[in-house]
């Protein structure tokens, strides 16, 4: 384990999951239910957050695609980990361990470490206190109630997301309280498409839920989590049911997010279309896959009825990274087959969370003049 901090001439490569250190005080239940505490509803009481820190796993796992975090330079602002103090966990699997077991152990270890760090600060005076009321069952005023529909990737081992400790695969859309996310009800085990990743850290700080909470003109209605099935009929079923759940809850509009590449575009497109079809205005967050030059069609499965889309940037466009003094997570960048310290050109797709589908980042696309 080693620390790396913002501004250092450093790079983390082969970044897997990242977790924000959080803990419950005495008698308030646990965080990461289903992993470190019983799988019972969370989201009540006091949660202690070690803001500005992250616990990060970095190293080789099968199906994980090359991902990079820059701690300094222009690219540092493209990843949430570029501005946190990161405790980086590197690992060497036992020769007789299966990769599935390595993954499980790594996740458990990472979560435990995050809790341990936060617990170390339990006695300290908080620098800030936030009160996060549960999402109200009815409208509190005349503001529209907006749902955050959050698609979770469910494509098998190393591309899976856990809810209360179990894979979301095979589930139907589920309404949860945004505060359940705060206590780690959703944990990532998804290592594909680094630029399009939603690590546990970002689920703990759900950007759409936070933006709706901060809005004076809209109210956060609730969070609806959905799997991203690999089968078209299941995608359609889940999308129709998510739209119906919004209607049942009386939500006035919805913001739909995904995790992953082109396959997951279909899940957003089907949902925003299903919502608009039953009269619920919907916005989808998409990343563009417009080729290196930005001239190719940006989406593989665009919506046909919904019109409002946010762009989180073109993942094929390349950017330059400078040379760094320190590299963590591995010796080489496989994608470019270069030493991890070297300067290189790399697509935004490889920068951890650069096009974050949950809406964390500021990256977007414009038409060139």
């Amino acid at each position, binding site marked *: 384990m080693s620390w790396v901090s913002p501004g250092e001439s450093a790079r983390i490569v082969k970044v897997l999951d990242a977790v924000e250190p959080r803990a419950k005080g005495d008698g308030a239940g646990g965080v990461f239910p289903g992993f470190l505490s019983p799988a019972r509803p969370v989201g009540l009481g006091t949660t202690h957050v070690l803001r500005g820190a992250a616990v990060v796993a970095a190293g080789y796992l099968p*199906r994980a*695609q090359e991902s990079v975090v820059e701690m300094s330079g222009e690219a540092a*602002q493209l990843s949430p980990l570029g501005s946190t103090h990161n405790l980086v966990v590197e690992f060497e699997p036992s020769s007789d361990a299966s990769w599935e077991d390595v993954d499980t152990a790594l996740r458990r270890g990472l979560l435990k470490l995050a809790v341990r760090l936060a617990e170390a600060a339990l006695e300290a005076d908080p620098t800030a206190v936030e009160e996060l009321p549960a999402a109200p069952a009815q409208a509190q005023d005349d503001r529209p109630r907006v749902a955050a529909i959050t698609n979770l990737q*469910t*494509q*098998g*081992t190393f591309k899976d997301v856990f809810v209360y400790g179990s894979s979301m*695969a*095979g589930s139907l859309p589920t309404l949860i309280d945004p505060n359940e996310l705060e206590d780690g009800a959703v944990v990532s085990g998804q290592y*594909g498409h680094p630029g399009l990743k939603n690590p546990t850290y970002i689920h703990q700080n759900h950007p759409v839920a*936070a*933006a709706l909470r901060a*809005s004076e003109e*809209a109210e956060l209605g609730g969070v609806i989590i959905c*799997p991203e*099935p*690999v089968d078209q009929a*299941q995608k359609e079923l889940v999308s129709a049911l998510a739209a119906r759940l919004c209607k049942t809850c009386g939500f006035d*509009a*919805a*913001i739909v997010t995904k995790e992953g*590449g082109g396959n997951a575009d279909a899940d957003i497109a089907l949902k925003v279309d299903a919502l608009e079809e039953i009269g619920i*205005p*919907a*916005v989808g*967050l998409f990343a*563009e*896959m*417009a*080729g290196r*030059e*930005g*001239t*190719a*069609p*940006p*989406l593989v499965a*665009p919506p046909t009825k919904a*019109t*409002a*889309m*946010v*762009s*989180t940037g*073109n*993942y094929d*466009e390349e950017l330059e990274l400078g040379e760094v003094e320190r590299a963590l997570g591995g010796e080489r960048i496989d994608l470019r087959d270069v030493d991890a310290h070297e300067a290189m050109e790399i697509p*935004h*797709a490889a920068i951890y969370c650069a096009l*974050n589908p949950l*809406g*964390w*980042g*500021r*990256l*977007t696309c*414009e*038409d*060139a*003049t």
Partner: protein
Amino acid sequence: MRIVHYINQYFAGVGGEEEAGRGPELREEAVGPGKRLQSLIGDEHEIVATVFCGDDYAAGTAEAAEEILSLTDDHDPELVVAGPAFTSGRYGVACSAVVAAAHERGLKAIASMHEDNPGLQDAGAAPVIESGESARRMKGTIERLAAAVQKLAAGEHLGEEDGRISRPRRVNVLADAPAAARAVELVLARLGGDTERTELRPPDFDQVTPAGPVEDLSEASVALVTEGGLVPAGNPDGLESSRATLWLRYSLEGRDSLPEGEFESVDGGFSTEAANEDPDRMVPLDVARELEQEGAIGRLHPEYLVTTGNGTAVASAKHFGVEWAVELHKAEVQAAILTAPGSPPSS
């Protein structure tokens, strides 16, 4: 300005499909549609050379665009015009490759084709001006192209009003607010009835008309092709696991199946475990050979073509598709089985 014009073998008047394999040649004058273009752009601009090439060669050879441009090196072109290609797919792909390469060289470049042409998306940052559907619309098409060439030569921007159909280039920038906050703004606008506001416009995908059924499969040559990233173990030619920029071919001669350990999938988009345990599940050589021996199919094409579908830009995929079609067409293949991977159903 000194202009080089690119056209195909047909519009150069050297032949039809039988000449499609012909390599590039240069004439030091305006040829075919270039003559009318020259008369419209006046004395100020001169078509100093015309390069023509067979459609199969131009669309199916990786280095064709560079070869075409290098022929013009002695003529110091300042501007490259390609087409009009109308709806002709291979011609459109070639026109786009030529103008994209010319643009990369720092030359002004412009192509003309119909909006349904599959080459449209390959033109890179070079503008593409709309043509009619076929050569019957040559007159209006050349007039529009001539006007656009004059504007481009004058350093002016070409927009929709000039018949530009290529999408403007998308560039990454940092917005003032995070995407989630922008989504809230957008959802409020949408609630207010605004159906125009968006940060992204959906692409228009063309519809491909399927080829007619194979008349007699027992006489047909059948190819196996895949976007499942299946390559010889160790991936000797470096196929990408995602965002592919190339495709490869591997021989099936002398094989009745693809054994575990000799082939593997490098595709990063699905769990490759089952494919690697039995690579025939990705490229079904075992059953295809059985069908060949039974006489159900005439002949199995002696090699398979492969790329990776995961995260691959639509423009690249289209390009590969055209190249594969040319390749298989040349080899007189009548049918192809394209396998694509998927993850196992959710459990």
